[in-house]
């Protein structure tokens, strides 16, 4: 990995897309403010942790779109040739994309989010005692870590698919999740011999019905920790690595 090349690639992306990023930031601010307005206006319908909800919708929505633009060059042959011909390794090009869409975006998003959240808090504190969202309360930051996994999946999709990569990736992701849910229920039923499994989470646990009550079965703590580390830290790394492999194999 050549740091000079990496810097040049980051500079390239920022210079070429600066206008778009600036406008995008304004749009994001507007959308978050609108979401806050909606949840505040219809606050009876949106009970609970509305700030967390707005944060996640904004993060995954805008982060997904932003990540999908990292390799938008592949949607057109001439642009794809241009990107592949830039004298830098595939690893450097992928690293630049991860740095921008994974880390830099997260920092920028936090800035924009807290700006809107600050305004929301300012306007609602007196009447409703609203305080700014605390990312470290209730282990919420783990969900933020899930953004890296989402980033890896969208990035891979943008190299895999040529046209409409974001939509196609989301569709595949949805299908895989639905399939995994049913497959895991089925598998748990066969392995455990329990007939009334009504819900399960792969690599985590399941619940079954007993005399009208849901009984929960979870992994022992240490294994659950390993499973969590796999999902939140190892899986993003795996997806980023597969993106790198796919990028090396990319033909235009």
């Amino acid at each position, binding site marked *: 990995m050549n740091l000079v090349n990496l810097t040049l690639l980051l500079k390239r992306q920022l210079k070429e897309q600066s206008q778009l990023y600036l406008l995008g930031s304004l749009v994001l601010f507007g959308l978050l403010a609108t979401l806050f307005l909606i949840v505040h206006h219809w606050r009876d319908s949106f009970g609970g942790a509305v700030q967390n909800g707005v944060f996640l919708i904004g993060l995954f929505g805008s982060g997904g779109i932003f990540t999908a633009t990292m390799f938008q060059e592949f949607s057109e042959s001439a642009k794809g040739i241009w990107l592949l011909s830039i004298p830098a390794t595939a690893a450097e090009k992928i690293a630049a994309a991860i740095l921008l869409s994974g880390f830099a975006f997260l920092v920028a998003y936090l800035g924009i989010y807290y700006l809107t959240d600050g305004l929301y808090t300012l306007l609602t504190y007196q009447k409703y005692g609203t305080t700014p969202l605390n990312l470290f309360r209730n282990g919420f930051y783990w969900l933020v870590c899930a953004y890296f996994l989402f980033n890896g999946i969208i990035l891979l999709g943008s190299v895999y698919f040529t046209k409409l990569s974001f939509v196609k990736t989301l569709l595949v992701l949805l299908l895989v999740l639905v399939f995994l849910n049913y497959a895991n229920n089925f598998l748990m039923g066969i*392995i455990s011999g329990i007939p009334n499994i009504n819900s399960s989470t792969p690599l985590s646990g399941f619940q079954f019905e007993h005399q009208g009550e849901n009984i929960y079965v979870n992994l022992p703590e240490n294994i659950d920790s390993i499973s969590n580390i796999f999902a939140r830290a190892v899986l993003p790394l795996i997806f980023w690595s597969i993106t790198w492999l796919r990028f090396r194999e990319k033909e235009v």
Partner: protein
Amino acid sequence: MKKSNIALLGLALIFTAGMLTTGFILKKEAAKINLNDPLRNYETTPTAAFKVLKISGSNGYPIHIQYDTGNSLTVLRRRKSFLKAKNTADTLEIIFSGANIPLDEASKNTTPAGIIIKTNAVNKIANQNTFVRIIDFRKTDLDLALSGQAVATFSNCQFPALNIRATGQSRFGFDGQNIADNFNLNLQNSTIGFLKNIQFAVLQHQVGDSAAVVLSNQVMAQVFNQGQKKLMQPTK
């Protein structure tokens, strides 16, 4: 086949293997559950005796504090990862975070207890932001401090002396039949005390400007009757 496709296939295999492995582990865990036990969704761990109980967090599942012969901590299995408990000297400190269930859910009868704490020695409870139910306390004095958005309800308790200090936006109330011989109230900020289903011999109170006390018919009669006998003694 392209290396990236092989890698994806490998990932699918690893995931499947993981699902199978966890499936067998979960089978063992499921076998440990006694389906005839009313607390089958809970896991119990004994804990050292404590006199002070500090609870904080924001979990929407209520916390039951029951007076009993022994000391133990029983937690809803699927909320176990959100519980942090620490024993120091005569203090048990509990942080019950996560879930992101609104606190309002806790008051519903359909919401199961997140934690059941059994104790035989506690006389001081500090609750910040969680919903606690204090159940079956007999013949013991209790100091209760509520802060933040804490909520406390008492069920069928008898206290020689009950001292409640509420701050922030905390609330408290009573269910069933409760007796506090010496009832000492200190309500500050935007706190609310619901005085219903409680009998007391002496009521001492200190209530801030924004705090509120809601009285039931029976309690109001008690207050006025006993007030004439000068048993109600404002401290401020």
